[in-house]
């Protein structure tokens, strides 16, 4: 029983997010960075670039390459993970790069690469969404020109109920998991993955919930960036 009396295992309501804390500009060397805590997740994202893409044959003469790398630290999970990329990390790196590239004005920096490094230091379900959300803040912190700041959140189905922001238990024992990344201003879908079993109606409900979650988190992203400058936003 993952839901009892309308409450989930950790006491949350179906449409409630886990606590999130975001800090921008936390690293000395990186051009832009973000430290993010989301439930039990601790994620650090850093951006270097745009910088010269090397070796030269990989350069695109019309735009910047966007290269995101998602990696989990050995100690971030219950059973120690051997260092180095596994197939899951490689896939997440790919879909993350693609999600981020859609909002970046890559044509402003031909022949360069924008390197995004996401390190998961402590993991508790939803690390890819945490990674994209942190990367969005790091990109803005680095001054990379974008149409919007990308944000991600997952929804899912647990005991027949559509819920927002799954925990590890809900992810493992639930019926479906739907991570979504959007450009919050326009609600464009930048990343969408799903595994499990959902009817079409259930999917609609889950997607709406995930987008709602994304927009709430987008406010926290903007707050974190402004906090760094302790300023007020226009628009």
């Amino acid at each position: 029983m993952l839901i009892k009396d309308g409450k989930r295992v950790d006491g949350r309501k179906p449409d409630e997010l886990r606590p999130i804390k975001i800090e921008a500009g936390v690293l000395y060397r990186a051009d832009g960075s973000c430290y993010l805590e989301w439930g039990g997740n601790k994620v650090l994202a850093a951006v270097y670039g745009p910088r010269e893409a090397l070796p030269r044959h990989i350069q695109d003469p019309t735009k910047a390459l966007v290269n995101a790398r998602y990696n989990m630290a050995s100690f971030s999970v219950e059973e120690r993970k051997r260092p180095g990329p596994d197939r899951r990390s490689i896939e997440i790196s790919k879909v993350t790069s693609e999600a981020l590239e859609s909002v970046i004005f890559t044509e402003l920096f031909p022949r360069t690469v924008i390197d995004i490094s996401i390190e998961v230091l402590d993991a508790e379900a939803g690390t890819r969404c945490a990674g994209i959300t942190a990367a969005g803040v790091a990109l803005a912190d680095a001054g990379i020109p974008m149409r919007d700041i990308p944000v991600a959140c997952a929804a899912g189905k647990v005991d027949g109920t559509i819920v927002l922001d799954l925990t590890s238990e809900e992810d493992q024992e639930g019926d479906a998991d739907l991570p979504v990344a959007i450009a919050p201003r326009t609600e464009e879908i930048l990343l969408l993955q799903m595994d499990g079993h959902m009817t079409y109606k259930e999917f609609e409900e889950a997607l709406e919930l995930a987008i709602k979650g994304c927009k709430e988190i987008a406010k926290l992203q903007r707050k974190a960036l402004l906090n760094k400058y302790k300023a007020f936003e226009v628009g």
Partner: protein
Amino acid sequence: MMRRIVLPGSVVGNAKSKLPGKGVFKEGDKLYASRLGILEDKGKYVNVIPLAGVYDPNVGDTVIGVIQEVFKNAWIVDINAPYPAILNMEDAPWKMEYGETAKYLKVGDVIVALIKLVDEARNVEVSMKGKPCRKIEDGIIIEVQPSKIPRIIGKNASMLNILKKYTQCWIFVGQNGRIWIKGEDDKVDLLIKAIRKIEKEAHTFGLTERIIKMLGG
């Protein structure tokens, strides 16, 4: 007090009455910021003055470069941009024969140069023909975020003049985020501290007064 800061995706104007300037793009009938920066809404254009980001070379910029590679008739110069620049021997201030380039500039040498050319694919050429250009032989070079250079110079060089006045240091500012400083050790230390403070507080009001106070004015 703080200036107003915008983020990528912030609404900054109406496309019907204003035009998108630097760091601003148009979507539908609104104008949006593409970068984290300070909003500048004067006249016909809406601009965003970036608070972060790499140096993007523009023709005419004065830059401080470091020689990376030497060829028989040219040098590759690191100008602190995502793009390396080429200095052809014809654009050097000395007359030389093919193969003599290493005699004048070797790897690690520091120069003041001007951006001569930037094409669509961002191939960059620099030249050392022009008044400020020279090889730098002494002093130190510090690096700051290129987006903070305008604040370090100030309106009509007001901030730069204050820095020079109170530290009696020689200061030469490159648009690419590199600053050449010469002076007495403790004055140079104080100057660097002041520059770092400007870097950190570039977006605030009242900075000039705080810098004057810091420099003992």
